[in-house]
């Protein structure tokens, strides 16, 4: 065995130098690069999130309550040795002269923030500087929006409740500012010591009290244990894992699905590895027999071939990891702006996974044919016709399937998902292979026509039908993904946008006070425009379904949990709103008390059925009613829609604000300025700006996905090279015979050209077909409209495939063209 160690390394070096195993190496490098590029990227994002999660809380843990913090919590934190800070958040009106502005006030003590830092400036959008503590007593820091709304400059004064505060700075960044888009008034940051003097906090005031904590994990555990018994339903203890759950979920999804996408490349690269390994094993037959004859034991051969693969795996993994590291930088660049500017360095885990991918792929796909070599009869040195027993089919396929399942499982860390994806991938590959097989069979009929090059080119494809099918599928998948992400994606988006009515609302008005509704109607009338509809809105939390008091813990679905934690925007209406349809139950005909109408998707998420009794907590009071109807909504209309509606009368007594939406042509934007000037408390939301943002995100994500699938195409090329290499001797001999019979280089070139161009065209057609099916499914299921097939998909797919595969194929077979026939005939 000791001898095998060095011997195998020398043999590998010699084989690599002689050009054997290069394709195998290439395929492995692609596989490893593909998984590590995704791995490095998601690893860095996860580390950034774990690191920044503390910053998102401005602490390591936050205890949040709607009641004043209990002194024993602070004592427990002190006893555990944790750093602590306290913040109070509430809404109030800031006043400057005659101007009033609703603000989200946050009062902080000297410890805030425990994690992360604040950034302030001397003027709105001016040069920012970082500070590690909040405003001093007597001063307030204001968000730029609030500065502009109140027409303030640094040094001016404003009135908050009964206290006059000086504007100390413009608040540019606050680490723990939530991600809510709607209903957020601008921020005013002040010192906690000033709050009593405002006289704003009275019994019953809506205040969120937060105790921010930071320190070591054991200290945090001691604190948790001490305070857990005293946490009531109004209190929440939030760790870094609870921060930004939607981002965390997005990362997990990205990790899983980009990772599995990368495994598609591994799967295809495995086909190349298996092809190349079989060819190598065939070529090593004589070598193995000679070595047996020269006295090598079976064990020595086993060790030699296994170790050769191990060394090969290590070298390929090293190259692949380096390539993957380079490629992940590109992915990160595509996501630039969506993520924190500087990501931390990755952990070694992606590299470990890359190495495992290389070794598992080799063990599953390359080892069985090579191990069969140890069985070669030594008598083969005298009698060439003797062959070793081929590796048994169930061993070959079994080891390959095991290897794939192991990789899928590791990547998805979920047995069910791995099984579904593996099954799905194999089924999809099966369907694609059947389609490709049908295409290849169809070629036979075409062989009759055409000249010599045409017939020879097609003959090459149909004779090696299995290899041709594998190549068509490999290229087909790569091209399909590129088609879906480029042509089909923009096509779907355009079609969706075209379907929106040109006058669909593109602006929302939020926070309209009840006494402003009439004035606003007058304003629109005076501008000669249609009055937008104003919808009342009351905030309430769903607290019970039938007799069951619900909490987020009752649901497994994260969306359901979020819905239960948050307050709903409740509204009332006598008429069924435009774009709504009653899916089941009935719409109330006369004002009635004690009924709700619920959006059907929400009802499904929360397990609400027709006739259930829902209780909402509105301004501290319980409002109950039975579900009278479930509604289907047209969300695409951009009209104001509500998940839960009541009949007039049920919610009128509670404090409401109004919401509206309207269409504004770009040239009419001055109207918006005028509107905001007249009603400065308004929050205006520009839908087009949001849409632009969404489109930007989609573009970036699809670029990243495209890059991952570029590896799939590279794997396809590896499959092609492996197939070309496996048939190389046969091709050389054929070309030599043709030449001796008088064929010119042009004829042989023509046959090769036909072969690879037809191969690429088939792959392109398969890709276009699959992309069209996928697009139709997406359009039907996700976008809910019929998709008209785009002819370009077929043209671009076929032409792209023909060009790409044609060039790659000719590059792989150029030796067939340049080899003198005599040389070939003597050698092969």
């Amino acid at each position: 065995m000791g001898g095998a160690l060095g011997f195998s390394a020398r043999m590998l070096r010699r084989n690599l130098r002689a050009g054997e195993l290069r394709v195998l190496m290439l395929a492995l490098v692609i596989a490893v690069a593909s998984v590590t590029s995704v791995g490095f990227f998601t690893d860095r994002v996860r580390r950034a999130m774990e690191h920044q999660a503390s910053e998102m809380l401005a602490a390591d843990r936050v205890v949040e309550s709607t009641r004043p913090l209990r002194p024993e919590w602070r004592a427990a934190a002190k006893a555990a040795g944790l750093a602590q800070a306290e913040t109070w958040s509430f809404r109030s009106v800031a006043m400057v002269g005659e101007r009033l502005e609703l603000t989200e006030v946050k009062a902080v003590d000297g410890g805030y923030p425990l994690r992360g830092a604040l950034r302030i400036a001397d003027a709105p959008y001016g040069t920012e500087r970082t500070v590690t503590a909040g405003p001093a007593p007597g001063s307030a820091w204001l968000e730029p929006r609030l500065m502009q709304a109140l027409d303030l400059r640094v040094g001016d004064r404003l009135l908050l409740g009964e206290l006059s505060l000086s504007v100390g700075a413009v608040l540019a960044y606050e680490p723990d500012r939530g991600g809510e888009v709607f209903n957020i008034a601008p921020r005013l940051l002040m010192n906690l010591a000033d709050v009593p003097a405002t006289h704003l906090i009275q019994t019953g005031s809506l205040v969120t009290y937060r105790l921010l904590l930071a320190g070591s994990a054991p200290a945090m555990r001691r604190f948790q244990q001490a305070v857990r018994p005293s946490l009531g339903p109004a209190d929440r203890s939030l760790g870094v894992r609870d921060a930004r759950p939607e981002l965390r979920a997005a990362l997990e999804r990205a990790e899983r699905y980009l990772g599995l996408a990368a495994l598609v490349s591994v799967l295809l690269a495995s086909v190349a590895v298996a092809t190349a390994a079989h060819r190598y094993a065939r070529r090593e037959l004589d070598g193995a027999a000679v070595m047996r004859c020269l006295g090598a034991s079976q064990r020595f051969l086993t060790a030699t071939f296994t170790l050769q693969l191990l060394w090969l795996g290590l070298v390929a993994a090293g190259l692949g990891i380096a390539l993957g590291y380079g490629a992940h930088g590109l992915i990160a660049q595509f996501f630039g702006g969506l993520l924190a500017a500087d990501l931390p360095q990755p952990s070694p885990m992606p590299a470990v996974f890359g190495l495992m991918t290389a070794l598992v792929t080799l063990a599953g796909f390359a080892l069985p044919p090579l191990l069969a070599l140890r069985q070669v009869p030594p008598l083969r040195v005298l009698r060439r016709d003797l062959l070793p027993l081929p590796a048994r089919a169930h061993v070959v396929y079994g080891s390959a399937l095991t290897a794939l399942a192991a990789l899928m499982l590791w990547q998805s860390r979920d047995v069910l998902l791995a099984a579904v994806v593996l099954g799905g991938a194999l089924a999809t590959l099966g369907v694609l292979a059947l389609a490709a097989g049908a295409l290849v069979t169809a070629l036979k009929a075409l062989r009759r026509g055409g000249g010599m090059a045409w017939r020879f080119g097609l003959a090459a494809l149909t004779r090696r039908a299995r290899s041709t099918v594998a190549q068509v599928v490999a290229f087909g998948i790569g091209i399909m993904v590129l088609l879906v992400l480029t042509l089909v994606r923009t096509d779907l988006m355009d079609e969706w946008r075209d379907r929106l009515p040109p006058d669909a609302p593109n602006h929302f008005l939020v926070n309209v006070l009840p006494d402003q509704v009439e004035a606003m109607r007058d304003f629109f009338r005076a501008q000669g425009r249609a009055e937008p509809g104003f919808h009342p809105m009351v905030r309430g939390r769903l607290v019970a379904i039938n007799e069951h008091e619900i909490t987020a813990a009752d649901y497994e679905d994260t969306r359901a949990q979020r819905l239960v934690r948050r307050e709903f925007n409740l509204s009332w209406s006598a008429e069924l709103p435009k774009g709504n349809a009653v899916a089941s139950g009935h719409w109330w005909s006369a004002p009635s008390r004690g009924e709700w109408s619920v959006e059907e998707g929400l009802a499904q998420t929360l397990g609400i059925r027709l006739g259930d009794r829902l209780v909402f907590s509105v301004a501290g009071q319980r409002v109950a009613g039975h579900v009278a109807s479930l509604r289907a909504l047209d969300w695409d209309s951009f009209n104001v829609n509500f998940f839960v509606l009541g009949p007039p009368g049920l919610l009128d007594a509670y404090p409401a604000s109004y919401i509206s939406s309207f269409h504004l042509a770009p040239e009419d934007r001055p109207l918006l300025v005028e509107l905001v000037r007249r009603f400065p408390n308004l929050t205006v939301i520009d839908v087009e700006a949001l849409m632009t943002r969404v489109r930007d995100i989609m573009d970036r994500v699809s670029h990243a996905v495209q890059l991952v699938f570029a590896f799939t195409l590279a794997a396809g090329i590896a499959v092609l090279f492996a197939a070309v290499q496996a048939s190389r001797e046969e091709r050389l001999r054929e070309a030599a015979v043709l030449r001796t019979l008088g064929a010119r280089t042009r004829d042989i070139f023509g046959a090769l050209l036909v072969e690879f161009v037809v191969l690429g065209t088939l792959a392109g057609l398969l890709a276009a077909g699959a992309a069209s099916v996928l697009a139709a499914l997406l359009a039907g299921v996700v976008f809910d409209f019929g998709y008209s097939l785009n002819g370009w998909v077929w043209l671009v797919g076929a032409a792209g495939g023909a060009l790409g595969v044609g060039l790659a194929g000719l590059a792989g077979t150029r030796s067939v063209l340049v080899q003198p026939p005599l040389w070939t005939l003597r050698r092969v």
Partner: protein
Amino acid sequence: MTAIVEARALTKQVSSPEGTLTILDDVTLVIEAGEAVAIVGASGSGKSTLLGLLAGLDLPTSGRVLLDGCDLAGLDEDGRAALRARTLGFVFQSFQLLPSLTALENVMLPLELAGIAAARGEAQALLERVGLASRRGHYPHQLSGGEQQRVAIARAFATGPTLLLADEPTGNLDTRTGARIIDLLFELNAEQNTTLVLVTHDVQLAARCGRQLVLDAGRLV
């Protein structure tokens, strides 16, 4: 004189669609150390089968082979391989050089398999001896047939075998090249005091051996 290889009542039968086929029929022979023996006979007379059995590359249907005093029947496949590594050198009609190894590396191969540390130096010396020092970095396909067979001869003598087996060593070569190869084979045989057993139907070559064993339809005549 001691016997290097001894065959006792060797019979080899294979089953074929036409029934059992007897390739070797009750062959008994003794080859002494230092002898040069030619096994001659027509195509299909069983020459190569006999050579394979003497080398332990295959097992007889009945009978025994004693190689360097060891009964091959008492050894398993790996045991026979180890015995070959110690005792035997081979030269084949089709050269059997490994295509991915250079001339030098091909000669190094048996030395490396035997775990000899100075493999490179010894292999270089042998290549020089067969007149191919300047071609050591060439791959087999870059060498002519005669050159390839010289590399194969250098490989066969690399481990200093006691018995050299050659299967039609000139079969793939033209007459003049074949003659040079034979000269080389006999020179090295003399230098290293090796026992030589070769299978051939080249009459000239057979005539240079001290003894000729003639096979006819599987029997020694």
